[in-house]
């Protein structure tokens, strides 16, 4: 599944999007673990980051919908 990256996450991965191997029916929490395993450079930031599913903040217990738009959001700092 493709994960869109922003801000420092994009810099650390040197990419706007990353590919993560995940079985169907996985949860956001399982995705979070997989990202950290496949992309260790992101692990520390990941622990402080939110995951958004279909443009909404997602808690780790959420089952990922099919064809979901998923993004890794570092701590926001707008304004």
């Amino acid at each position, binding site marked *: 599944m493709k994960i*869109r990256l*922003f*801000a*420092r996450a994009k*810099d650390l991965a040197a990419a706007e999007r990353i590919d993560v191997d995940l079985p169907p029916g996985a949860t956001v929490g399982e995705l979070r673990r997989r990202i950290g395993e496949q992309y260790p450079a992101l692990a520390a930031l990941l622990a*402080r980051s939110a995951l*958004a599913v279909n*443009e*909404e*903040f997602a808690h780790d217990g959420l089952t990922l919908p099919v064809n979901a738009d998923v*993004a890794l*959001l*570092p*701590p*926001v*700092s*707008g*304004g």
Partner: protein
Amino acid sequence: MFSLTRDIIDYHALTEQVRRNDCGAVVTFLGTVRELTEGKQTVALDYEAYPEMAEKKLAEIEREVRSRWPVGDVVMVHRLGHLELGEISVAVAVSCPHRDQAFAACRYAIDRVKEIVPIWKKENWADGSTEWVDPTQAHG
């Protein structure tokens, strides 16, 4: 109303947009690029957004403001891209019947923008380094 823009924010226009006869108070907040942060000198800021989600969250904030106060009108604009010192990064203009409401509603709106909208700022320090601001990390 809300928007993301790469253009200079016309705060006079935003203030005029919310001013109306059934309101006795207009409060306009401007967030600007500040030079000093914890002793470090900024030369510029870069702002990036997840635009689709940022718009959703701005819409949500507008609904929250309207449900909590008697709002005549509210407009929020956040600028993206490269901003120099003193430039306006964000503007919130609110009109309400009375000033207590207008101050409270405007304060609430900007606090929520900073809390939930997926926008990120990168400091360009005077020493040439850059740093994505992370409010969850205390500086040493």
